[in-house]
């Protein structure tokens, strides 16, 4: 049964940026696209241990700060090596000024 977890305020994430969200020993990344939509993925690169929230958001892509691997944060697809495995994505709901993650 999915559950909603209150992650942050919409003001916490600038447009075309990402923040880290830790919950129950798991690291997530919450993105705000240039058009203002919110997305969430796992927060650790699938290649090696690197915090994606330290990376750079460019349009619909997050670049890992360690090896410059890239993912589309809407789908999790790995689009530039070294990572070859997609990121897990999570549904996001915005209610009022709060951002909620839908976690399994």
């Amino acid at each position, binding site marked *: 049964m999915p559950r909603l977890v209150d992650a942050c305020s919409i003001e916490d994430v600038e447009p075309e940026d990402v923040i880290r969200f830790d919950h129950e020993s798991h690291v997530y990344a919450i993105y705000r696209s240039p058009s203002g939509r919110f997305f969430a993925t796992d927060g650790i690169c699938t290649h090696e241990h690197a915090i994606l929230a*330290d990376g*750079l958001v460019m349009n619909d892509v997050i670049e*890992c*700060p*360690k*090896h*410059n691997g890239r993912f589309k944060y809407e789908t999790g697809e790995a689009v530039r*090596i070294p990572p070859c495995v997609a990121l897990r994505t999570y549904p996001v709901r915005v209610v009022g000024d709060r951002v909620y993650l839908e976690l399994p």
Partner: protein
Amino acid sequence: MRASYRKRDYSIVGPASEQAIAKGLAAAEWYHTEVPRKQMKEFMQRSDGPAIRDTLIWLSLLAASGAGGIYFWGTWWCVPCFLIYGVLYGSASDARWHECGHGTAFRTQWMNNVVYQIACFMIMRNPVAWRWSHARHHTDTIIVGRDLEIATMRPPDLVRVVLNFVGIVDVWFAMIDMVRYSAGRLSPAEESIIPEPERSKAFLGARVWIIIYVATVAAALAMHSLLPLMLIGLPRLYGAWHMVMLGLLQHGGLAEDVIDHRLNTRSVLINPVSRFIYLNMNYHVEHHMFPMVPYHALSRLHEAIKHDLPPPSPSILAGYREMIPAFLRQLRYEDYYIRRDLPPSAKPYREDLAVGELVLQIASSDVPGP
């Protein structure tokens, strides 16, 4: 009493690799200077403009000096032309390979990919194998048994170092590797880092390169002239000196098996011409600490974090004055390394993992002094 040592094992598929993993040195959390997110985002921003400008200058100078070399071939006037051409081919390609491999030089990825392929050919580094070895170099910088790109292993092989100023050793091994890749073979070390789906690209690239080199040699034979090889292939030898001169300074004489780039990496202040050739990789501590910052922002990054770094070597000569004595000392005492003082404003070195413990095996009570 006689002290005996086990020779350092730099293989990434041997016992040293397992020891590095066991000690927590592999894929470790490295020290980073704190930079506000807003400022770091500014440093990380990508732009095509600087790299398009620098690439056009680079290729134009290559074409002009190459044309001059052809026009003046057979006279002494071709010498300065090939001196310039050689450095642009055999040294500047190193920096272009590096920056475009990181994907940070251009904002537009296809531009990174095109320049990357050209530069890889010039510097004779397989585009696939070196992409993955460089990723490992950034994960485990100068970690014995993990990093494939340690230029001066201990004890330093100074003959090899000197020969590489004209590319002799590196090119010899690059040719062997090229033939090996073209036959569809990887070394065990390469198999350990290159994923299966990537391997066929490495083999295809090597086969294309061999065709180009065979065609160049055939042209030289047909023309009874060295000129084709002076333009393709040989510049990797006679133009390599600038790359080696600066490349050795990156980590030479500094610590192994640490997880703080301030201990194992050196920044050097250099002249503007060398900075253009080297694409600002003289700010090497900054690059390793924040590899997502493009080359054109490294000097600004340096200004922002220099309070937390050891002072950069003030010149190439100063860097060599520091590094060469360290190399000579390491011939007698391998565990010696240069430890530079931090400014008072810096946070202490991260030294929760001991330097040298991994490899120093002392059989008796005598420890040789530095």
